[in-house]
């Protein structure tokens, strides 16, 4: 299958290792990965902060870039949530029939990374090997907007050597929330503290998620507290094999 990668702007800039891992997993499974260079950002930061007019050109650019893709893989649940929850509404509000038709045609081909593996490719075991204790934080957008349910856990359970440890109060927000962390830093930090305490309580050495944005927050808190626990995107764990260990 030819799979177009929308890596997301912050992964592109801050977490290139996630895009590299996605490429590695998909190619290892025999698929062709494409990376359209015109891509930048889904518009979520603008839209969620209230800059709705500014988000619209980003939606247009996304649609233009990926309209011919067979499947689009996005290693960011919050970006996919943005697309599914808001793109149609935004096009409707603009009264742009062509844009609306394009969005409707494209949306069913967009997959969050774990969805792509489980729903589209029908896989749970991707041949990964990762002999560490891992805990999993279900990010709010993956949980309540995409409803990915236990797909990431099913993938993690099939990783050889991996010991999966349950996270206490796992469905509670980490406190990132995009610009929320900047606009309400004290509340965000208090929410983060609850999350890092729970992560540290697991005894795991790795905390995984489908969103590097949440992981940036969780790592930021753990590292500030001097914790050695690392954070990894699910794709980075699935990219590991016996050869890479």
């Amino acid at each position, binding site marked *: 299958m030819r799979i177009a990668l929308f890596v997301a*702007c912050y*992964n*592109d*800039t*801050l977490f*290139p290792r996630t*895009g*590299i891992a996605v490429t590695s997993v998909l190619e290892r499974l025999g698929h062709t990965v494409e*990376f359209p*260079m*015109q*891509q*930048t*950002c889904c*518009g979520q*930061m*603008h*839209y*969620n*902060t*209230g*800059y*709705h007019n*500014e988000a619209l*050109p*980003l939606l247009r*650019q996304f649609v233009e870039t990926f309209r011919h893709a067979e499947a689009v893989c996005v290693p960011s649940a919050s970006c996919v949530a943005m697309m599914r*929850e808001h793109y149609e509404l935004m096009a409707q509000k603009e009264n742009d029939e062509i844009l609306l038709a394009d969005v409707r045609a494209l949306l069913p081909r967009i997959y969050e990374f774990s969805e792509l593996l489980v729903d589209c490719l029908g896989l749970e075991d991707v041949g990964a090997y990762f002999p560490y204790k891992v805990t999993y934080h279900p990010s*709010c*957008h993956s*949980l*309540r*907007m995409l409803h990915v349910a236990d797909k990431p856990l099913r993938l993690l359970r099939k990783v050889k050597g991996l010991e999966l440890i349950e996270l206490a109060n796992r*469905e*509670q*927000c980490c*406190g990132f*929330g*995009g*610009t*929320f*962390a*900047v*606009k*309400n*830093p*004290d*509340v*965000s*930090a*208090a*929410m*983060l503290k609850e999350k890092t305490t729970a992560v540290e309580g697991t005894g795991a050495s790795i905390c995984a998620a489908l969103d590097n944005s949440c992981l*940036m*927050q969780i*790592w*930021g*808190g753990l*590292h*500030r507290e001097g914790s050695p626990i690392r954070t990894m995107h699910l794709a980075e764990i699935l990219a590991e094999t016996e050869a890479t260990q």
Partner: protein
Amino acid sequence: MSVRVGKTATAPAFPVAAKKAMQDDQLRRNVHHATSVIRGKRELRVAEMPDWQRLRDAGHAIKDHTLLYLDHYLEMFERNCERAGGKVHWARDADEANAIAIQLIQRYGGTEAGGIEAIKVKTMTSDEVQMNPALEAAGIHPYETDLADMIVQMGEDQPSHIVVPALHKNRHQIREIFIKKMELDSLGDQPADLADAARVYLREKFLRVKIGISGANYAIAETGAVCVVESEGNGRMCLTMPDVLITLIGIEKVIPTFRDLDTFLQLLPRSATGERMNPYNSLWTGVHPGDGPQAFHVILLDNGRTELLENERERETLDCIRCGACLNACPVYRETGGHAYGSIYSGPIGAILSPQLQSMEHSRSLPYASSLCGACYEVCPVKINIPETLIHLRGRVVRENQETFLGSIAPENLGMQLAAHLFTHPDEYEMAQSLAAIGQKPLMRGDLIGPLPGLLGGWTKFRDLAPIPSQSFRDWWKSREKQQHKEAR
């Protein structure tokens, strides 16, 4: 415009108030404990309902329908209420509602030496219009009889939760308040001790005071009946013992038919307190000779509500049945408690209701008092899409800011405009990526980014931040392509 929802006009912005509230460890412990207990009970009671999602849909549909034809149902309620012997008054805003209430109380109470007294059953709407201060200014003494509201009133405090107004107080604090205000020599701090003291204090009021003031959970258009649900029975005393009953209702509380209660009396108690049914469900229709109050007045309050009817997204806020489930589910509320919202309506619903009832004048920070985690939407018994409404209101705040000169040159707006420009010009975006990776060097402290200035300072104050890697993903991709190209040749 007058202040519409509690004390918001003078309240500080949410981040400032939240920071202050969060320094009170006792308050945070109380709020954490109480919300987690209620959440646990709610989950239990919801889980035993196989048709819960369909009930939520039904609740949403009834509310949607009623709000679309609100004028029709309100007039129907008025006709039927008056046919049964009640009298309906219409209040455009808080001042009108208070003036009507005061006039009625003075008419029935006469001019007693030492002032007229009234007993009150829990009503958020009367807090919304700040009725107690208005009554006191007119020489009327209102006594709250809901236990939690009584604690708030005696403590000269503000409610901090829609259903549990004194949720931020623990029983030791409550004991102190009782000893002081009831002038007791001694009092135990067990729940039974506190309940006994309250019972003795309140019973005297129930037996003596002749005017009752209530809110209502539902006004039924079809029959003209009014419904109050509660847990303590104090409400029932207020509704049945006085000679005169004045009921203040927000116009959105009307429901079309008696049968619709079936849906809401299942949704509300489970969502609010984790009970299958409220211990007391009181319904009354007009007046009945020799039984209960002999004069019954309803004040229907608008106070900004009709302005929400036009826009579909905004209208949905009026679906709220005031169960408080979104407060208990909200991680932001749980850290700050209710006072930080600077409004009588706190938590996620307050963050959308208060700014709309006030036309955004006093509460522009509230739509941002959420991480958009969606927990509120998940638990809302009538499926109000609170996150979506928050985003809608943020859009209004941004547009209104951009229309002012200061707003248009604010760092956030400039930053967002720049980002939008870069995101629509991939070449420039790529250049900015490389520039940022180089430009961050002076900010580095060892392996990390040091304290950042301005807007981003809130991040580095509490969390570490790793630097931007020297190679972006697209750089990696391009070098890989080059390599593959070379190998192919």
